[in-house]
C-alpha cells in the first residue's frame, strides 16, 4: 500500500447523504482509500457510483445540506475541522481540481489571462512575476504562443486547448494533489492522449499526487498506479493497476472488463444484466447483489466488508471462491 509513508490523503468510512426533493438520499455508503504523495490513484465507476461526489468531498465542495460522516484527512489534518481561512488555503494551494467541462468553469466574459492570474495575484503583488509563472506553465502544457493566448477569451479556444488551460491553472497553484474528474471524457481520443500525457508528465516532474476519476478502465489502467473501482457508493475493489486489470477479484470489476468492446475482434460482448444503480437504490446487502452472476443468499442480506486478498482489497463474500472463475473469464475477455 503506502509503504509506510504518511499518506497525503486518507479517507476512512466516508458516508455522504444529499438532500433531494425534501428527503436525504445516500450517495456514498462507505468509502475508504489513501493516496500517497506522488501516487496516481484511478477511481473508476459508472453513473451513480459516487466517484464525483468523492472528489467533491475531498475538496469540501459538497452541495448545501449534504450530510457527511467519516474521516477525511489531508496531510494528517482533518479537512472537516479547517476554519474558513484554512479551508480557502487548502482549496487554493494544497488541492486543485480539474473538471470535465472547462467551459462551464470559466467565466466567458473574462480573458484566459485573467482566469489564470486570479490565483497567483492573491499571493503576490508582483504582477510581472505572476505573469511569467503563468506563461511558463502554459508552455509546459504545450501552449507555445502563451503570451497571445492570455488575451483571448474562452470561446476562442477549442475544448482541448481549454482543458490544457484548466490544467495550467491547477498547476500554477503548485498543489500537492490534483483531482481530475473525467478530464478527457469530452475530448477526442487524440486530444485525450495529449492531455493525459501532459498530466502524467507533470505529476512525475512535480511529484504531484493525482486522483483520476473516469469511467474508462483502460485509461485508468494506463495511467494510474492503483485503481479503486466504485459501484453504488461503495469501493468494491482497490488494487495496483496492473494486477487489477490482469486479474480482477470482484465480479463487478470482472464484468466491467469483459463488457468493453475489443479493438482487435468482433465478438458477442459479455454483459452485466440490468443497469448501474446509485447508492440509495441498492438494497441492504451487497450493493452489486441484484446484478451479480455469482450472488448467494448471504450477499442479499449482509453487506461485505472490504478485506485483503492477494494484494487487492475486495468487498465480496465469495472473493476466494471466485478467484479461479474470474481469472478464466478475464483471460477470455482480454486475450487477442
Amino acid at each position, binding site marked *: 500500500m503506502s509503504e509506510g509513508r504518511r499518506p497525503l490523503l486518507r479517507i476512512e468510512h466516508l458516508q455522504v447523504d444529499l438532500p433531494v426533493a425534501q428527503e436525504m438520499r445516500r450517495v456514498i455508503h462507505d468509502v475508504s482509500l489513501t493516496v500517497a504523495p506522488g501516487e496516481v490513484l484511478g477511481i473508476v465507476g*459508472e453513473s451513480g457510483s459516487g466517484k464525483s461526489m468523492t472528489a467533491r468531498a475531498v475538496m469540501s465542495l459538497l452541495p448545501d445540506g449534504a450530510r457527511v460522516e467519516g474521516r477525511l484527512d489531508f496531510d494528517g489534518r482533518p479537512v472537516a475541522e479547517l476554519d474558513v481561512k484554512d479551508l480557502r488555503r487548502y482549496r487554493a494551494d494544497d488541492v486543485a481540481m480539474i473538471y470535465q467541462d472547462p467551459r462551464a468553469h470559466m467565466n466567458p466574459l473574462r480573458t484566459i489571462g485573467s482566469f489564470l492570474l486570479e490565483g497567483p495575484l492573491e499571493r503576490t503583488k508582483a504582477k510581472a512575476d505572476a505573469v511569467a509563472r503563468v506563461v511558463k506553465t502554459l508552455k509546459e502544457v504545450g501552449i507555445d504562443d502563451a503570451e497571445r493566448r492570455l488575451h483571448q477569451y474562452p470561446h476562442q479556444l477549442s475544448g482541448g486547448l481549454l482543458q490544457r488551460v484548466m490544467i495550467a491553472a491547477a498547476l500554477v497553484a503548485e498543489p500537492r494533489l490534483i483531482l481530475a474528474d473525467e478530464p478527457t471524457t469530452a475530448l477526442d481520443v487524440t486530444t485525450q492522449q*495529449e492531455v493525459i500525457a501532459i498530466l502524467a508528465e507533470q505529476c512525475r516532474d512535480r511529484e504531484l499526487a493525482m486522483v483520476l476519476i473516469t469511467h*474508462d478502465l483502460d485509461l485508468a489502467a494506463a495511467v494510474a498506479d492503483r485503481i479503486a473501482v466504485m459501484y453504488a457508493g461503495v469501493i468494491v475493489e482497490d488494487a495496483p493497476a496492473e494486477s487489477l486489470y490482469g486479474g480482477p477479484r470482484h465480479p463487478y470489476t470482472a464484468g466491467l472488463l469483459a*463488457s468493453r468492446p475489443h479493438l482487435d475482434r468482433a465478438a458477442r460482448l459479455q454483459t452485466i444484466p440490468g*443497469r448501474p444503480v446509485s447508492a440509495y437504490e441498492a438494497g441492504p446487502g451487497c450493493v452489486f447483489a441484484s446484478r451479480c452472476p455469482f450472488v448467494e443468499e448471504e450477499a442479499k442480506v449482509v453487506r461485505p466488508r472490504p478485506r485483503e486478498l492477494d494484494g487487492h482489497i475486495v468487498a465480496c463474500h465469495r472473493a476466494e471462491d471466485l478467484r479461479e472463475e474470474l481469472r478464466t473469464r478475464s483471460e477470455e475477455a482480454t486475450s487477442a
Partner: protein
Amino acid sequence: MSLLEVRDLRKSFAVKGESGGTEELIAVDGVSFSLAPGATLALVGESGSGKTTVARIVAGLETGTSGEVIVDGVARPPGRQSRKSRKKFARDIQMVFQDPYASLDPTQSVRSSIAEVLREHFDYDKGRRSDRVAELLDQVGLDKRQGDARPGSLSGGQRQRVAIARALAVEPQLLILDEAVSALDVSVQAQVINLLVDIRAELGVAFLFVSHDLAVVRQVCTDCVVMRRGAIVERGSTDAILKSPSSAYTKELIAAIPRPGWRARRRAEIAAEVAGH
C-alpha cells in the same frame, strides 16, 4: 443495386471571419460512398470530421450544398423536404440519436410514441397495433410494463432501446445510428451493442453507424470510412483498416486508444520518434 449512394456530397457554411468578412466553412468536402442492402458501414472520425453532418444530410434533416443522396435508386430532392417526401423516405431510412435524454418526447408514454409511428404508416386496427407495439418492445429487450412509462422514469439505456424500437416500427431498410451508444455507461453500452447486432441478424436492416469509438465500430460494422475535416481519408473493411491502416491519420487514431501496455505520449514525443526514422 446499392441501398444508399452518396455522390460527391458537399456542405459549406458562410461564417463571420475573425477579421469581419465572411468566410466559407467547409463541413463536408466531396464525400462519396455506397452501402449495399443489409450491409454495415461506419463513419469514423473525431469532432469536426463532418461525419454527423453527412449522416444528417443522408437522413434528410439537413441539405447539402451540392452532391446527391440516392436511396434505393431514388434521389433525395434538393432543398427543404416536403411532408410527402419525408413520409416516403421515412420507410427507407430511420435514425437513432446520440442523446438519450433528448431523443424522446417527455410528454409521451413509450407505448403511445410507438403507436403514433404505426398509425402514421400502417393501416392496422387497434388490436394489431397493440400487438405490434408489444412485439417491438420485446425485440429491444424492454418489459411490456415499461410501455406505459414516460421517458422521465427510464434510464439512458432504456431510452435508447425505446428510440430503437420506434425507429424499427416503420420497418426501414437503413438505420442511421449517430453516436447512439456513446452516451451510455460501459456495461449498458455492451447490452445495446449486442442488441444492435441481434437486430441486424434478425431483420437484415442496414446500418450507417457514426462513431468516434473504433472498438465499438469493430463490433458492429464490417466496413468503415475514416473522415477527417470533411473528407474521407481511408475506406475499407473494418478488419483491414484496424489491422493495417494505410493513412497516417488512421494510424494516429488507433495509436491514441488506451489499451493494455499503452502509454500516453505527447505529440512532441511522437513527432520526434517519427522524425527519427
